[in-house]
């Protein structure tokens, strides 16, 4: 037995080597063998479209691009959402990203940009990216520079059952918070469960707090608070109080604290089966409602999150996010060409038509026929402010703490003040 310090160092070296070995191994997948001998460029395209029909549509688009650009080969790597996220964290650590990769923008993209791994698209996409919907490009702007090109955009709002609203005598969807609370009470007095909520999963509850914070403190307040690592401002506490007002009315379905989102007894199914009047959810809600439950058909309507009286925010400011593609630093021109192809009106029409995303190219709007999605699109187009989903905008620990604290507020175990303090504490712990 030698010097214990030495053997400890030996162990550290060994474990470091193991760690490096692992990143190197996972890095292998990311290597692109660009620049083949025959002058063809292979572009690796990592995405998360593992479900149909998107998977086939995207593969067909890649084929089409290859046909139009004979010297380019697109190599598609598809990973399921969570697998993709963990793989990307490993790749980010190893310092090499795929040529084209899926991104949600926000904090994760910023991390990758800060590590110098992502291509600044300002100059390389200038001539054609101007035509894209401004709000769709928002998540990928870091220090005002675009680092990603969107193919999807969406937002959170209330999806409601028109029949239930009619029965409760609510003439028009509420546009103010007090109007909203009145509507909840009107529904309750008709013995209709006003709101379905997936309490087990926490993130659907967070939407309420995030929107209320946007409405009381303004659209950019959540971003600023994150930068300053301080959520204890009066307006954030106020947002919590407004949420408390809602919770005090007991508007949620029976057993909501244990309910999941997309299961047969979950939030979406409860609304989809007509057993609750509304849910606060993203633009995918109609699909999930029909998938997990029966779906409401023509009875389904959409209205934006109401404004809070006296708040700094406006009803036209949206909370949402989408999907986009970013390029690794110094990606070949073929990758930029592919982004241009993917963001063309022709491609976007096909995406909107076949895969149910919302158009990011205004010219593709003509193929959007669903009246509810049209309503969402209208709201997005006229938006005056934007906040990205907090789990993408914030560091993971902060995003989770928001979810967790708001869940505690809804369960009645944390006060609005404590919510603000908990989030601030977690934000300060992250450097």
């Amino acid at each position, binding site marked *: 037995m030698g010097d214990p310090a030495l053997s400890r160092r030996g162990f550290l070296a060994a474990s*470091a080597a193991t760690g490096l070995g692992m990143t190197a191994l996972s890095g292998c997948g990311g290597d692109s063998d660009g620049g083949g001998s025959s002058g063809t460029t292979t572009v690796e395209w990592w995405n998360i479209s593992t479900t149909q029909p998107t998977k086939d549509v995207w593969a067909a688009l890649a084929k089409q691009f290859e046909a139009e650009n004979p010297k380019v080969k697109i190599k598609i790597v598809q990973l399921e959402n969570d697998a993709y996220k963990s793989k990307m964290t490993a790749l980010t650590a190893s310092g090499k990203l795929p040529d084209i990769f899926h991104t949600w923008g926000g904090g994760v993209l910023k991390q990758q940009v800060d590590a110098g791994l992502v291509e600044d698209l300002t100059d390389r996409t200038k001539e054609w990216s101007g035509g894209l919907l401004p709000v769709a490009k928002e998540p990928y702007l870091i220090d005002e520079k675009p680092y990603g090109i969107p193919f999807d955009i969406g937002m959170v709002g209330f999806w409601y059952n028109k029949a239930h609203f009619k029965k409760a005598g609510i003439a028009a969807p509420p546009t103010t918070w007090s109007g909203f609370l009145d509507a909840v009470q009107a529904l309750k007095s008709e013995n209709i469960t006003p709101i379905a909520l997936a309490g087990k999963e926490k993130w659907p509850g967070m939407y309420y707090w995030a929107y209320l914070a946007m409405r009381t403190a303004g659209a950019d307040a959540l971003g600023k608070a994150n930068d300053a690592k301080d959520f204890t401002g009066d307006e954030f506490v106020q947002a919590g109080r407004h949420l408390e007002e809602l919770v005090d009315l007991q508007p949620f379905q029976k*057993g909501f*604290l*244990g309910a999941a989102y997309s299961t*047969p*007894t979950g939030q979406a199914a409860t609304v989809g089966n007509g057993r609750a009047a509304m849910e606060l959810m993203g633009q995918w809600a109609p699909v999930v409602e029909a998938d997990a439950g029966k779906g409401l058909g023509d009875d389904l309507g959409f209205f934006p999150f109401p404004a809070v009286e006296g708040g700094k925010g406006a009803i036209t400011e949206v909370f949402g996010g989408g999907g986009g593609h970013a390029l690794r630093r110094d990606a070949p021109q073929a990758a930029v060409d592919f982004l241009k192809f993917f963001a063309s009106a022709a491609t976007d029409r096909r995406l909107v038509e076949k895969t149910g995303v919302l158009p990011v190219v205004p010219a593709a709007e003509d193929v959007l026929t669903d009246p509810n999605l049209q309503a969402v699109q209208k709201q997005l187009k006229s938006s005056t402010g934007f906040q990205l989903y907090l789990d993408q905008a914030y560091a*993971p620990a902060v995003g*989770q*703490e928001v979810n967790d604290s708001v869940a505690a507020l809804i369960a009645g175990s944390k006060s609005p003040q404590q919510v603000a303090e908990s989030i601030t504490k977690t934000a300060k712990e992250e*450097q």
Partner: protein
Amino acid sequence: MTSTFLPDERTGPDVDRPPPSATAARGRGRRRAYHWLTAVGFQLPALVLFVVLVLLPILFALYAAFFRWGGFGMPSDYIGTENFTRAFDDPVLLGDLWRCLVLVVLSVALQLPFALATAVLLNQRMRGRAVYRMLFFAPYVLSEAITGVLFSMIFAPGDGLADQILGGVGLDGLGGEWFADPSMVMATLFLVMTWKYFGFHMMLYLAGLQSIPKELTEAALIDGANAWQRFRSVTLPLLAPTLRISVFLSVIGAIQLFDLVWVVTQGGPDHHSETMAVTMFQFGFKRYQVGYASAISVVMFGISLVFALAYQRFVLRRDLEGATTTMRGGGK
């Protein structure tokens, strides 16, 4: 170290043989080397895997627990024992410890006696005995994830099978929010755990019961012992080693409980069913505070280790010394 691989040192009969000739010795030397190589050859893959996949990660977690570390690159931000003080300040983790204790006590006080009673019943001669045994053991074969999905449907408030059945027989009042009510969730969880695991313990006890010689119970019968006395003074003491192992498995199971909770409640509502493993997962894989999660895992490891060592030292020692065959401490 190497001598343990040498077969000749443990083979006794060699000693009585006449001294070997020189060529035989050389041959045996070669054989020895050959045996040694075989042993190493067979053990090396497993050893390497064990070291790389088990030992190093454990040691690394121990190391990472002293850093603020997000899981990328190597830990560099050394913060001493801050992760541990934070863990023992965290009401959720303290709650985890309390809930773990509750589960252990409930398991030992309710689940295991129930399993024992079933085992004793099913050890009698009766029609369809094998069918009952199989039925009770079947839940153990299901994966925890499937059990979780199954019971979250059964206990779905209002719609679930449990509420429907209670409603059907006019007991609406007993229906409830099961997994959704903070004050009910642990009880419901324990019910599911009992459903899933009592069959396993029952099987252990059955095996133990069958190794008890019939002569002993017969002798007690002849001595005029009634059924309870036979159970209390013959069966139970002879079953004790099995009981001790079963308690051990039960406690370790409670400490590392994860899958079932994750699928059914994710630790909710509001942390009321969270276990240490769930808390660790939340911080490690949801929040990427891997240093802190490592500290939690070290605490879990420490608790398991201390319990396992203490249990072996004070409880299982009797089995290791063969307390069932040497009449030691017969008065107890």
